[in-house]
Structure formats: structure tokens, C-alpha cells
């Protein structure tokens, strides 16, 4: 069982019109080399699922993206990104950040959706089924399954076990869980057994390909 892969081989999973979840929160835990490779592939009609959208400006400008599902596409100052999204006719689908995380988890956990009070009485409740449980109303948010997940980790072994540092975990676990195929960009590939069994943030069962970063140590500023 050896999930190590070249960048090109791993990215051969990508097809037009796929839904791709991309981990990271700002630069922390963001798989930038996978995204750079995606940019070079000339795809069409991609649906991007990510917490933010600011790192996908080039992808959007190239016409590769038809929809973005995210919680915080850009801050108020991001005039060019907003214009890019409008010019490219990209559909922007906002979800509260916790609902986004939980819907990805639900997809990965084989659950039928998420019952949450977040968004009740707001525009986020539009088109949502309301389920009453013991007298309390909840929005039913459907599970969010994705074709591919691009995630990032500090360490991986060839079985796909991943270990992260700091706030880099963020969406990477739930996205790997929700994905048909998960590709991990990692800073270091270690021997099987070197990731301590109590310290594995994403069990290899959720990971399909491990790609060693070429740029370990480069700064990743937002």
C-alpha cells in the first residue's frame, strides 16, 4: 500500500465539472502546489468548496470555475476578486462556516444531513427543509459530498496518515472525509510507523494520494 504519488499523477484524477474541496484557512493548511497545478490544467465548470475564495482568483479569471461554495469569499477590501467573480459569472454559494464544516463531515460520516439552528430566521434558511425535533425547529442542511479533496499536512506516511501543526487542521479532516478521492500535499513524507498512533490527525483511510511538496519552508502569506 503506497499512496505516494507525483503531483502530475495525483492530479490526473481531475476532470471538468468536478466538485473539489480545498482545505486551509488563509494560508494555514492550504495545499498551494495542488492549486497551482490545478490552475495549469485548463479545466472547466469546476465547483470549488473552500472556506475562502481569495486564493482562487487566477482559477476564476481563467474561466475554470462555475461555482464556489464557501463561508467567507473575500473581505470588504477585495474589490478585484469580487469583480473577477462577477465578470466570470461564477455562482457564489455562501454557507455559515460551522454548517459548511458539519455538512462535509456528515457526507463523510454517512449521515443524511445536519440539523442546525444556525441560520434560522435568516436568508440562509431559504429553500431549506425545517425539521421539528421535540418542539424545536432546525434547518436541515444536506450532506456535502465532493469528488476530490485537496488537503495539506506537515507529515504523511505512505499509507496516507497525516499529521498537522497548529491551526492547519481546520477543514482538512472533514474535506478528506467528504471526498471520493483525497489528495494530500505534505511537507514531509516519513516512514510508516513514524507518525505516532495517538498523533494522527487524519487517518490514512481517508487519504488516497500523498504528494511531497517541492517548496517546503516557503512563506505562505495571505
Amino acid at each position, binding site marked *: 500500500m503506497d499512496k505516494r504519488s507525483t503531483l502530475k499523477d495525483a492530479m490526473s484524477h481531475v476532470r471538468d465539472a468536478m466538485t473539489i474541496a480545498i482545505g486551509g484557512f488563509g494560508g494555514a493548511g492550504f495545499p498551494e502546489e495542488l492549486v497551482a497545478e490545478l490552475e495549469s490544467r485548463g479545466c472547466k465548470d469546476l465547483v470549488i468548496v473552500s472556506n475562502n475564495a481569495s486564493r482562487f482568483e487566477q482559477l476564476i479569471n481563467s474561466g475554470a470555475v462555475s461555482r464556489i461554495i464557501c463561508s467567507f469569499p473575500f473581505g470588504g477590501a477585495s474589490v478585484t476578486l469580487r469583480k473577477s467573480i462577477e465578470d466570470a459569472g461564477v455562482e457564489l454559494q455562501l454557507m455559515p462556516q*460551522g454548517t459548511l464544516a458539519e455538512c462535509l463531515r456528515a457526507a463523510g460520516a454517512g449521515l443524511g444531513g445536519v440539523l442546525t439552528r444556525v441560520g434560522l430566521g435568516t*436568508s440562509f434558511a431559504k429553500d431549506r427543509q425545517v425539521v421539528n425535533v421535540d418542539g424545536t425547529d432546525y434547518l436541515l442542511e444536506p450532506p456535502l459530498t465532493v469528488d476530490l479533496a485537496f488537503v495539506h499536512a506537515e507529515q504523511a506516511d505512505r499509507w496516507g496518515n497525516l499529521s498537522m501543526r497548529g491551526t492547519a487542521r481546520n477543514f*482538512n479532516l472533514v474535506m478528506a472525509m467528504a471526498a471520493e478521492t483525497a489528495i494530500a500535499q505534505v511537507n514531509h513524507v516519513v516512514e510508516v510507523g513514524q507518525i505516532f498512533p495517538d498523533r494522527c490527525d487524519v487517518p490514512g483511510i481517508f487519504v488516497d494520494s500523498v504528494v511531497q511538496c517541492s517548496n517546503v519552508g516557503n512563506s505562505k502569506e495571505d
Partner: protein
Amino acid sequence: MAWTRNEIAARIASDIPSGWVVNIGVGIPTLVPEFIPDEREVLFQSENGILGMVALGAQDYPDPELVDAGKRPIAVRPGGCFFESSLSFAMIRGGRIDLGVVGALQISRAGDIANWSTDEKMIGGIGGAADVCSGVRNLWVAMLHTTDVGGHKLLEKCSYPLTAEGVVDRVYSDLAVLERNRDEWHVISCAPGVTVAQVRHVTGFPIEVEGR
């Protein structure tokens, strides 16, 4: 004389009891932690996956893998911990966060908050705001009392898209600290030289007479 942004943050900080876990939003709320005295154990949670967040020290090297919800470099204090997004929002939605301090565009009499978009097309970013405003045990809003042109932000009903319904407990503005009990609001304190009558004048819903 109205309170400055720093004075609003300091006032909020002085009201946070030791032992509370606090999630802070962007804007004035980001100033709150620096006014917490060192001896008071207040833990700051950031929804991107950290409990025990502290400001980066002058000698600290910024770590690209260690940021707050505003993507600014931070550090973790001893006793802090990291976690992934679904557990982070389980804490928030599950009522484990004692206090959320957020900014706002509009607040309604019923405690509704609009703090992420001015526009029904929902352009802008909601981020973790809906989860935080809905989930925390206490929600305090730090804001200027009126708009740049003097319009009301404390209103009978919000006109902007809501972040959450009926959740605001207190407003800390540049003019006053107000507290809500169902549909009734009263003034806890006014900025120096500001009268309750002046606060009423710039508030779009009734403020109860003190002592009632």
C-alpha cells in the same frame, strides 16, 4: 464625550469574568484581549481551531500554520490547544463559549443582529459569524452607536440580512452600554458627559426608564 474604540474595548474587557472562554470577531472586538489583565485567566477561542490564542510576541517568529480567524499570525498560550473545524464549531454551537464579542451593522429591538452584509444579494462573507452569534452563551456587540452620517444602527427592525435572530445581550457603543431583556432595553452606563436622553435620541427603539 464619546468613548474611543480603545475605551469601548477596555470597558468590555473589564466586564469579562475570570475563567470565561471568549470568541472575538473583527473590528473593535480584536482590541479586547490587550485590555485583559495578565492575572485574569480568560481564554480566547478562534473558530479556525484554537483555544488559548494570544497575540504574537515581539520576539515570536510568525508561523504560517498558526493564524486567527482574521488570518493574522498569533501564538498559543500554555494550556491552549488546536482542533479541526467541526470540533471547533461543536464548541460554538454547543454553547461552550461563554461570550462572543462581535461588531454589528444593525441591531434590532428583539436582539436580532445584522453584521455581515448590507445587501440582500448576500455579497460579502458570513464566515463564522452566524455560528458564533447563534451559539455563544452571551453575545456582546461592540459598535459605534450610529452610522457615519448619523443614522440609526439600533432599530425597531433590521433592514440588512440577519446574521442571527434574538441573540444580542448587550451593546457596547461609543455612547453607552445597553442591556436587553426580551424586547426591553436599559442603559447600564453612559460615556462621560453623555445623557440617557442623548442615547435615546440616536436609538431607534425605546429605552426603559431606569428603576422601573
